[in-house]
């Protein structure tokens, strides 16, 4: 083989063939995307509660709190407006309250909705998890009755999966549902339920047969959260706040018509729900990097600005590179959606990276504050205590929605093709599984 050989000519032709403009990377919208974006932007501009813009822009970490208004009330108003303008749950089919939008249109909408998207926090579990489950397994009547009201924000849904003894191992849950005539009677306890105290409906997974292995004895239901026997108690969290709840069930009656999927098929139904949870692509997770960059740019240390200190620069740069890596990882996913392709598994790293980073950044920011770092008041020295708050809240980022360890298992097994963990309880009837370590 030499210059002029067949292989050589083939290679060069291949190489030269790539010179068209279409082969260039770009961040531009296609004409259709641009038109969609213009429509969305116009609508947001005409309808968004602009008086909240400043406040919403500031609260980038953790739960949103508004100084004078109740987030659920403001959120409901925004959601209703969106629904009326046909912008709510826009990737849902039209007949259930959506717009029938494509995945890339949903991403564009989220970009244009911008900070106002934070107002939709109370509806995200409904839109992202409960709604899709009802859509996949509910009767036509149920879909037409519940989905449009979920989309319009009139009714809020919560998800009742985790239990005190069933977190990562959620299939080990204990809450019982027993068939009595045409009804089911539920007893047990759920935990870590966001928004249970303001929710109208809940998606509930319960054990209907304790005599078979754990994954096989589960069934999915939905229920009215105002049913008799449902008691919601707020949990006081390690960071002092109350954002989650415990939900107790005492002889709660659920009609069989509110069952989703077959009896004993609850686990596979729940996988649909959780798959949808992990599909939340457009939403970028907070990393703490912009806050840290600003903090270091203004903080005066003994020998000058923190950002001029070599040790600070090194750590800051590493975090900034990670954060931009996450940003462009999500762009790769969006690009695939834009081309109508199925995104690769790369987006699975998001929460794993950002959760740890948030915690590390908070720790380091406090270290730079020296002795004053211990103070949690709203004073100037500690920049309104934002990193202290971040420190105390960040453990939940590494647990909620899949712990770091579960996420690593998922990457190892589903992306890298490594073997699943050995599950000693896999073929053991649920009621024979040990419940105490010692």
């Amino acid at each position, binding site marked *: 083989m030499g210059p002029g050989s067949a292989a050589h000519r083939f290679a060069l032709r*291949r190489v030269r063939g790539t010179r068209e403009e279409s082969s260039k990377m770009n*961040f531009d919208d296609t004409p259709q995307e641009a038109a969609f974006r213009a429509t969305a932007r116009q609508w947001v501009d005409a309808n968004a509660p602009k008086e909240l813009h400043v406040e919403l822009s500031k609260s980038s970490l953790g739960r949103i709190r508004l100084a004078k208004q109740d987030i659920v009330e403001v959120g409901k108003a925004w959601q209703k407006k969106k629904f009326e303008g046909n912008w709510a749950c826009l990737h849902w089919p039209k007949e259930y309250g959506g717009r029938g939008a494509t995945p890339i249109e949903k991403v564009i909408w989220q970009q244009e909705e911008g900070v106002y998207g934070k107002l939709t926090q109370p509806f995200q579990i409904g839109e992202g998890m409960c709604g899709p489950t009802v859509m996949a397994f509910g009767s036509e009547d149920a879909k037409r009755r519940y989905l449009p009201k979920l989309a319009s924000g009139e009714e809020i849904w919560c998800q009742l999966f985790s239990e005190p003894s069933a977190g990562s191992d959620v299939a080990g849950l204990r809450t019982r549902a027993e068939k009595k005539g045409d009804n089911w009677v539920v007893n047990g306890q759920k935990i870590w339920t966001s928004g249970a105290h303001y929710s109208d409906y809940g998606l509930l997974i319960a054990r209907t047969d304790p005599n078979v292995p754990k994954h096989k004895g589960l069934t999915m239901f939905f229920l009215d959260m105002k049913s008799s026997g449902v008691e919601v108690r707020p949990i006081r969290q390690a960071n002092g706040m109350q954002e989650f709840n415990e939900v107790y069930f005492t002889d709660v009656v659920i009609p069989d018509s509110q069952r989703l999927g077959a009896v004993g098929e609850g686990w596979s139904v729940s996988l649909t729900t959780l798959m949808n949870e992990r599909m939340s692509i457009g939403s970028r997770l907070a990393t703490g990097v912009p806050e840290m960059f600003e903090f270091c740019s203004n903080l005066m240390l003994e020998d000058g600005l923190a950002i001029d200190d070599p040790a600070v620069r090194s750590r800051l740069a590493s975090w900034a590179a990670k954060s931009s890596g996450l940003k462009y990882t999500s762009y790769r996913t969006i690009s695939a959606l834009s081309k109508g392709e199925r995104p690769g598994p790369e987006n699975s790293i998001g929460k794993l990276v950002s959760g740890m980073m948030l915690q590390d950044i908070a720790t380091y920011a406090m270290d730079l504050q020296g002795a004053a770092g211990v103070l949690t008041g709203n004073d100037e020295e500690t920049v309104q205590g934002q990193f202290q708050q971040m420190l105390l809240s960040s453990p939940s980022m590494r647990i909620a929605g899949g712990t770091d360890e579960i996420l690593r298992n998922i990457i190892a097994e589903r992306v890298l093709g*490594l073997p699943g963990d050995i599950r000693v309880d896999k073929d053991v009837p649920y009621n024979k599984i040990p419940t105490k370590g010692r």
Partner: protein
Amino acid sequence: MNFDFSDDQKQLRDQARKFLTEKCSPKAVRVVLDGKAPYDKELWKGLAEMGFLGVAIPEEFGGAGAGHLELCVIAEEMGRANAPVPFSSTVYLAAEALLIAGSDAQKKKWLPAIASGEAIGTLALFEGKGNPAPNNVKLTAANGVLTGVKKPVPDGAIADFAVVAARIGSSGRDSDISLFLVDLKAGGVEVKSLTNLDPTRGQAEITFKDCKAEPLGAAGEGWSILTQVLDRAAVLCAFEQVGGSDRALEMGRDYALDRIAFGRQIGSFQAVKHMLADMYVSATLARSNSYYGAWALSTNAAELPEAAAAARISATQAFQHCAKNNIQVHGGMGFTWEFDCHMYYRRANAMALGLGSLSYWEDQLIDRMRKKNAA
């Protein structure tokens, strides 16, 4: 949005992979590793024939006239194969410097020779310890004559020509530095091979004694040209590092599936699974940052300096992380000369220093982010 390589570019990548799998097996890499050859001449010739050496060189200068995106996909494969050839010094450093600052005559002289595989080029920047900085350039240029010592010079012992950074003044400003082109076969230079961490890519000391040199670019513009060259090379090296990271991750994954201990595949232990998952995370972050760098490079965007620094940091960290944990997954066998793990470990850690250390690029990223924020 199109934030991916095109189908044609992906096909080019497949073609490069196929070619390198055939012509650049670990066995072939070991010939150079064991010191039996300074580089793989046959492979170099083959790369020229495939059009890979001149992929980003315009057709009028004997190249394929494609672009930097095409060069990125080839770079990734070069890293994956751990190719023992002077690709990065010739293509990313010397050719890019010529493309940025060369006169028509200089381009005509050297670029076709690079594309055809006849000339190996390099950049002679460093003078012992230290990172890229005008103050670290002591070698002097006066009346077209260079005097001083450069080391380490990548592939210096096999190079036909070098781009040399030289001091022309002592004002303390960037304009004290100019670049020169030196024909290393023409006399006035003394070249000595140096032992180094990664024997599959040589390093040399070059002494310039009253060596005749022609200027590359305008006098006093040397540092600004160098900065551009280093940014471009940072992106291209990042793709090599991404290719190397992926290969190291794959080797670790494959071994974890094959190796049985305690009666199970070791890849079924969470300690091993999680180590590999973390390697995947690093490699993914590096790939995404590198794609952004590729976009900036291929469009000559104002964002290139920041994108290049982020890609460099991310890819350096990923390759080091994947290469070291690949050995860890392999256990004792990973520490033998016989297994290939150490070739990637050596390459990862050598590449981490080639264009300036990690802390140098961290510094650069912060400076560039500040500049952007201030603008």
